[in-house]
């Protein structure tokens, strides 16, 4: 009972942080639009105009990803829908976990790849999809598969899937807008500055241009860091939700262990979809140690948090070593 109350408080605090972070990304975009607009037009109203343009682009991208993002992600990962007849065990496990989490049965897809992994996407529990690799089905037993599916349905139930779709695109949007601005100032900035210099452009305008350039460089990095930190928190939360649903920390723990020790690389994953997966699929490039740039928390830390739930001692140094190499 006490365990489930901690889950709920963790859920609440994660929701609060998510809203703060979404607002943060919005503010960065707005400030950048204003500085860029003021700087290039020399007029506060021009600044507001740019702000509006930046926010409109972000809103368009956001709503596009809201309605079509799941299909794009599934297509990019070459995921194929499955039926009860072709994959009875997988479908049964998904049905069990959707009963446990009290959400509708999601659409189930399979990715033909021997690297064990899984992800969930969609805009809400009524329009959710989960995808698993053939390697996951081959390498895990039923109990472990249940843990992984529960983790993914945890993302669905906690609405992480919607948030990750939106944040992913917003982060891309910030980078895109910053990029357009930087090119614009490099190509046209010089000529404009000369003309304005004769007319006596204000100091404020120059400050704004500098500010905009700084923001254009810093904003995409900041937005990306924000996305990554949200992503890591959400992995812990989904692990906790999985235990709450299955009432069994062992299955998930063993699944993490097995998948973590697996050396295969998932070919269809890339930088734009890696944050969706059960564990980070890009192993060759990504250091598995704790890092500001990681989409997932270190596996050993995830396992330790699960072990804490049934009063097991944390992993030994040797065991941690075995996971990271």
């Amino acid at each position, binding site marked *: 009972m006490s365990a489930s109350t901690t889950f709920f408080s963790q859920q609440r605090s994660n929701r609060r942080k998510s809203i703060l972070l979404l607002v943060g990304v919005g503010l960065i975009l707005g400030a950048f639009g204003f500085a860029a607009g003021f700087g290039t037009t020399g007029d506060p109203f021009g600044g507001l105009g740019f702000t509006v343009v930046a926010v409109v682009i972000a809103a368009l991208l956001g709503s596009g990803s809201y309605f079509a993002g799941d299909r794009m992600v599934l297509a990019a990962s070459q995921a194929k829908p499955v039926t009860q007849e072709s994959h009875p065990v997988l479908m049964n496990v998904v049905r*069990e*976990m959707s009963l446990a989490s009290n959400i509708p049965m999601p659409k189930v897809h399979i990715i033909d790849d021997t690297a064990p992994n899984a992800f969930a996407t969609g805009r809400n529990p009524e329009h959710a999809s989960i995808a698993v690799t053939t390697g996951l089905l081959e390498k895990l037993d039923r109990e472990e598969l249940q843990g992984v599916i529960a983790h993914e349905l945890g993302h669905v139930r906690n609405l992480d899937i919607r948030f990750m779709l939106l944040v992913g695109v917003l982060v891309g949007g910030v980078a895109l807008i910053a990029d357009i601005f930087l090119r614009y100032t490099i190509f046209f900035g010089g000529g404009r500055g000369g003309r304005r210099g004769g007319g006596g452009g204000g100091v404020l305008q120059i400050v704004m241009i500098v500010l905009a350039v700084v923001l254009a460089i810093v904003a995409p990095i900041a937005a990306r860091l924000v996305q990554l930190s949200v992503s890591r928190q959400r992995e812990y939360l989904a692990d906790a939700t999985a235990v709450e649903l299955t009432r069994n920390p062992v299955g998930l723990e063993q699944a993490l262990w097995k998948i973590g020790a697996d050396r295969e690389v998932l070919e269809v994953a890339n930088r734009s979809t890696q944050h969706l997966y059960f564990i980070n699929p890009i192993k060759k490039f990504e250091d598995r140690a704790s890092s500001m740039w990681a989409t997932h928390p270190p596996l050993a830390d995830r396992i330790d948090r699960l*072990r804490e739930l049934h009063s097991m001692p944390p992993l030994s140094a040797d*065991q941690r070593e075995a996971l990271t190499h």
Partner: protein
Amino acid sequence: MEFIVLLVVLGVLVLIALFVVGLYNGLVQRRLRVDEAWSQIDVQLKRRHDLIPNLVNAVRGYMEFEQETLTQVTQARADAVAAGARGPADQAQAENALTGTLRSLFAVMENYPDLKASQNVLSLQEELSTTENQISFSRQHYNTSVREYNTSIATVPAVFIAGMFGFDPREFFEAEPEAQQVPEVRLR
């Protein structure tokens, strides 16, 4: 003056009526949730009752020396079907007994390699395990909605109207005791 008093009295009566209607609708909604949760369990229980004779027939030929285990399963199934008419609490007991006999059957089946090679038996076994899991996950949901409903008809303010409109408390579908133990950990 009298007219105003009359209006006030009328207004108060209307407010009370609205309040009672709201309470009543709330109770109906909670009761409906209990019924829905129950039908989720019921579907799975019936499904399990239908699957068991198939499994018993499929394994009978292989397991000549285990007739007693098979008879126990068949008997427990008959008891569970009969208990279906006696309400959730009784049925839960019979179903738990059935789960127990099924587990011992599965354990015994481990000794017969021929059985594990049979696709038919394997798929029946998978169907039965998923049914059992679905029963246990629907049970959590059912018991939560029963608890909410029973609490609301026993507490102020709904307690005043619950008896009047025939809202009776519902029975829990109890879990088997051993299912709540945390299993042993094996890493590596």
